């Protein structure tokens, strides 16, 4: 740092209030509610801890493995489409976990939508943010925005184009608005140039966006289309 920069910083010290790392309104409310629940026995600290641990380990990896396995094994693909929750167990996901009857918010009605050469599937929940959390993790922030939910059900081709996905008129767009108890994910078609690939190699290109249906897997593309990420004020371990 030069002498000049140093002086400049001091100018600011005189005009800007000192930074206080304030606790936010929602943090106050969440802590107050959790304390009262535990004190009243509404739930135990142990139950809260168990659910926290469960929620911290969910993510898109099992879903990517499920699709990669289906690409490699036609019998498994048949099972995945006919009995998706049975197939989920093969990639380590038991939809009845962690309560014995599933995660309350996600229900236990799962269906996989397979793309074909003439049909492209994409999912949305126009009412909230229904999403196959147990196998795909938490939904991305943009998936929950009123903007995506308002527009995908009416202008799907325009929205997909904003994700860099341009579909020809020969391909039918099938939008699945999952608004009740079913949860859906997309099984895209295996792309060219992946003939001798192993399951782990295929998993690399099966990004979360491909399983939502806003992107197509491509040899060499291993990241989601949307990579800009707003930082949290006080980050936790999820997401």
């Amino acid at each position: 740092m030069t002498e000049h920069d140093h002086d400049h910083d001091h100018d600011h010290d005189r005009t800007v209030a000192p930074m206080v790392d304030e606790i936010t309104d929602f943090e106050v409310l969440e802590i107050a509610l959790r304390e009262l629940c535990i004190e009243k026995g509404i739930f135990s600290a142990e139950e809260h801890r168990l659910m926290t641990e469960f929620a911290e380990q969910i993510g898109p990896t099992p879903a990517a493995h499920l699709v990669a396995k289906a690409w490699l094994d036609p019998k498994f693909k048949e099972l995945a489409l006919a009995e998706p929750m049975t197939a989920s167990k093969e990639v380590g996901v038991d939809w009845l976990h962690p309560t014995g009857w599933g995660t309350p918010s996600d229900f236990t009605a799962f269906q996989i939508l397979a793309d074909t050469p003439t049909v492209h599937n994409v999912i949305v929940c126009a009412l909230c943010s229904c999403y196959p959390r147990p196998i795909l993790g938490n939904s991305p922030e943009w998936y929950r925005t009123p903007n995506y939910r308002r527009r995908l059900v009416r202008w799907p081709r325009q929205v997909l184009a904003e994700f860099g996905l341009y579909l020809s008129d020969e391909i039918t767009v099938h939008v699945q608005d999952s608004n009740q108890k079913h949860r859906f994910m997309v099984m895209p078609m295996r792309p060219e140039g992946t003939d001798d690939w192993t399951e782990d190699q295929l998993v690399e290109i099966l990004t979360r966006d491909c399983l939502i249906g806003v992107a197509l897997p491509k040899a060499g593309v291993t990241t989601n289309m949307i990579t800009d990420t707003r930082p949290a004020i006080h980050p936790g371990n999820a997401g």
Partner: protein
Amino acid sequence: MSTAAERAAQLDLVTRLKSSFPELPNAPTPDMLDHERITAYLKPVHDVGGEPDAPMKYENKQYELWEHMTYVICEVLGWRGIWLSEERRRMGNVDVGRAEYLGLPYYGRWLLAVARILVEKHHIGLTELSERMAEVQERYAGGLEGKTLEAQPKSEGDGSQVKRNNHAEEADGKGDPQCYAGQAATAKFKVGDPVVVRELPVIFYTRTPEYVRGATGEIEAVAYESPAAEDETWDRPARPEWFYIVKFNMSELWYGYTGTANDIISTEIPEHWLQAAK
């Protein structure tokens, strides 16, 4: 402690928060409102599908600790029989009203739903909640300063007297909606049947989107049995009915649809919302 000027400034701020038609006064007389506007005001605010909007920049977001903890507390309350997910979805996504629905962060609404259910079902008094919030604020007065964000319950309650629903017992080992299997009347529709979505009057809650009401579609799948969301959301006894995945041709569904003639949208609808298409 706030000053009179600060209180006035906050009121000014709230006054600028608009959630009504600008051409109408607040609390209009009945003659000023037509059916369309009454329907718009009564529309469950989560039902945004098809509302015009301009493109925006889509972003990911890192999780705040409180957001993650809010998700967890919601799931634990479901697990321990304090609410059904359908109660949570109504309280956090609809009961909050238009201004809060559009104005607050996603998990802010989830958290308000937690407070709402605990207060409304008499598990927590609102006075004790306010006092505890003040206490937590005081604990962190002057900022975090190296302290961690943590709950410090003063004790662990025995919970045997807490009033709970029976959902965990009913769904254990089966899941939901599987726990309702075999309870509905015979399914009225089969795959391929043409159906019209009824235009039932809506107040308070529904999960049948406005954009398909009155439209003709085709049964794509006979999905499962479950109580209708409108009943399940109040956790009252209701006979399960069949749910269907119904598909709609988008060029017929949407006026001025800009895609191809073959594009389709599917959504899930309970039987009482459907009638056979003529």
